[in-house]
């Protein structure tokens, strides 16, 4: 990371804390709550959907920007319409779901749902992530020209903190003492928040152990040793495995257009060959339970859609003998002299390369476990770790055997986005026709796409059944192979200086830096 070059929420690379999900400086209408899977009020007091036509949002009349101007319906309309004029802004995708925004009065707006892709869940997700910009600050800049490249160093937001100091070593936020939300949400206790920009993870982890950092999002292997062996006042959400609240599922994506890998049974055999418990232990320090054969994350925001019975009935687990049974009995494959199976039509299972960016050690270890498991069941998979841009280029082009990736994490749209990212071919250019930004292996299944459209508009009580159905399609076709659960954000607490952070035993705030997690600052008190 370099020095912060802009705090503009319009830029693609935004410095802490100004991207959409951090409600510290800029604030969205609502904030995503990782514990409930829903969005909590902020600038928006409430929202109400009118069927699938529109959503009406009531704004809090008390909300104001740091310069004293009120946050009004005009600011909301300005912000939501900006991507129509400046298509590079990071919330440009909202246009796919919100086709228009209208001011009703100063504290009410109506947003029209895009009738070409009706999806109230995605709309909720955007309500909980698009930062509201002050129109009076940004409109003149837009008139001056290249607003996307505007290097904003004195950001005006409406949140409880503003930038005090920003340099290549650290960003210091200062509390806004007359923040409009003090009475409603509680005033933050700390006067300053210091965000050091460490040179490395080791550097950051050392500072955390020394009690110089109170809250850290770093990957800290075997963090439990800090309280078990060293007796430090350190904690994570859970006191045992998986320690962190899961929020996503990194997956292996086989190229479903390569001979051999195009067979769902071969993909299922590979899935049976992976030692998920070993993977959780060695790759991610037990910050994951052994993953299930499902694209839904159990135990957190998506728990109500997770169907354990269905997973147990038709899913896979680490069972190498079942993999071999599939290969020999169902596929009629025979083992060559080199120990690798050959399908009845002569297709040898491999050599295939499984890849992820070089240096992403947790993923590299995951792929090593996958490759080792495949070898043991007679499928020839080796690993390869290119540089990050090279990796992304190949993955987006569809030019790979197996790649590792994460799709959308937990959001107010539920697991819908993850299923869409893994299984929807609409809007994805074919292999050789341009880069894909989801469905990298260009998997195609009409049933899955129909189910996605149904889930998008379904009532809440119909969703468990529909998600079970699409998860069933996933288990039949195995378009991707889940490898582990991943925390939405690692949440490492050191209570040497401040106390009152949430844990699973005292879940007063979601354990996230972003979204509703910002409310934690009102709950803290200094250690005497």
């Amino acid at each position, binding site marked *: 990371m370099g020095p912060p070059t802009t705090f503009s929420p319009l830029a693609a690379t935004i410095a802490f804390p100004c991207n959409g999900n951090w409600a510290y400086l800029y604030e969205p209408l609502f904030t995503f709550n990782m514990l409930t899977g829903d969005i909590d009020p902020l600038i928006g007091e409430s929202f109400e959907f009118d069927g699938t036509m529109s959503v009406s949002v009531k704004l809090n009349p008390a909300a104001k920007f740091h310069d004293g101007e009120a946050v009004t319906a005009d600011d909301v309309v300005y912000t939501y319409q900006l991507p129509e004029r400046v298509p590079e802004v990071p919330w440009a995708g909202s246009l796919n779901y919100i086709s228009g925004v209208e001011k009703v009065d100063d504290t009410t707006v109506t947003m029209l749902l895009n009738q070409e892709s009706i999806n109230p869940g995605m709309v909720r997700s955007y309500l909980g992530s698009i930062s509201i910009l002050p129109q009076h600050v940004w409109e003149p800049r837009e008139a001056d020209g290249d607003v*996307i490249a505007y290097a904003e160093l004195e950001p005006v937001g409406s949140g409880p903190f503003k930038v005090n100091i920003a340099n290549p070593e650290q960003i210091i936020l200062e509390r806004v003492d007359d923040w409009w939300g003090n009475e409603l949400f509680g005033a933050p206790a700390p006067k300053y928040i210091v965000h050091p920009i460490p040179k490395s993870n080791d550097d950051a982890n050392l*500072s955390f152990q020394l009690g110089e950092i109170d809250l850290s*999002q770093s990957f800290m292997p075997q963090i439990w040793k800090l309280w078990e062996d060293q007796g430090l006042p350190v904690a994570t959400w859970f006191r045992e495995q998986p320690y962190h609240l899961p929020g996503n599922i990194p997956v292996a994506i086989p190229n479903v257009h390569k001979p051999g890998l195009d067979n769902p049974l071969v993909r299922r055999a590979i899935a049976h060959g992976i030692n998920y418990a070993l993977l959780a232990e060695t790759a991610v320090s037990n910050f994951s339970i052994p993953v299930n054969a499902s694209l839904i994350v159990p135990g957190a925001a998506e728990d109500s859609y997770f169907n354990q019975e269905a997973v147990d009935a038709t899913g896979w687990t680490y069972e190498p003998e079942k993999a071999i049974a599939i290969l020999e009995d169902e596929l009629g494959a025979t083992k060559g002299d080199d120990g690798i199976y050959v399908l009845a039509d002569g297709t040898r299972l491999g050599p295939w390369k499984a890849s992820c960016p070089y240096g992403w050690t947790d993923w590299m270890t995951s792929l090593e476990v996958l490759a080792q498991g495949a070898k043991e069941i007679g499928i020839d998979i080796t690993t390869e770790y290119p540089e990050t841009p090279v990796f992304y280029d190949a993955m987006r082009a569809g030019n790979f055997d197996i790649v590792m990736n994460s799709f959308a994490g937990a959001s107010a749209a539920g697991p819908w986005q993850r299923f869409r990212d893994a299984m929807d071919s609409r809007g994805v250019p074919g292999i050789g026709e341009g880069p894909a930004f989801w469905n990298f292996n260009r998997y195609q299944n009409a049933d899955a796409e129909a189910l996605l459209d149904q889930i998008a508009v379904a009532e809440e009580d119909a969703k468990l059944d529909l998600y079970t159905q699409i998860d069933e399609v996933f288990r039949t076709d195995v378009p991707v192979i889940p490898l582990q659960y991943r925390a939405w954000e690692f949440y490492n607490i050191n209570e040497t200086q401040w106390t009152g952070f949430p844990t699973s035993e005292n879940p007063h705030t979601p354990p996230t830096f*972003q979204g509703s997690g910002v409310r934690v600052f009102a709950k803290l008190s200094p250690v005497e």
Partner: protein
Amino acid sequence: MHVSISCLCRGDLVTVTRYLVQKTGWFLLAFSVALILNFFLPRMIPGNPVDTIVSQMGQGGADSQSMQRVYENYMEEFGLNEPLHQQFFTYVGNVLRGDLGTSFSLYPASVNSLIGNALPWTLALQIPAILIGWIIGNLLGALAAYKGGWFDRVGFTGSLLLSSLPYYSFAILLLYVVAVRWDIRQLVADTAPVGYQPGRGRSSRTR
């Protein structure tokens, strides 16, 4: 006393001119080669900078459809969808005007301003280091030559040892002595109450 007066004769002038022309020619050649390499080498690597920007967006939590839209717009804005030779002429034109363009990795900062920000620190470190090195080195050398004996031997071996230490391991040793043993960090007042470290580089959000 004999005083020699040197005069700049015609022959000398020709030599100096030839020397200057030759040097300038070599300089221009090296400059062009550097320019060409600087332009083409990064472009020969698979992938492009917009990939990286868009990936950072994804790690910041942007959804895949936003990434798709932004990708297309940035490709156009940076001219990366134009033919390579056209991109090259644009680049050369900008460099000759002293405009090094916009940084891809620290978008939207201009490269000129990034160099401008870093240069004073580089100079503030380098100039004193060069001066101190020159003065101490020459003093020690002169002293060693004058005194000879054990002083010469210790000085010679010592400087040989120091100069052959790789700078990165020497830096770690210095870091240990200065930051850990002497702990000069205590001199830095720590007034801020909440230290907060939301990860670096890749956020966990999309992983």
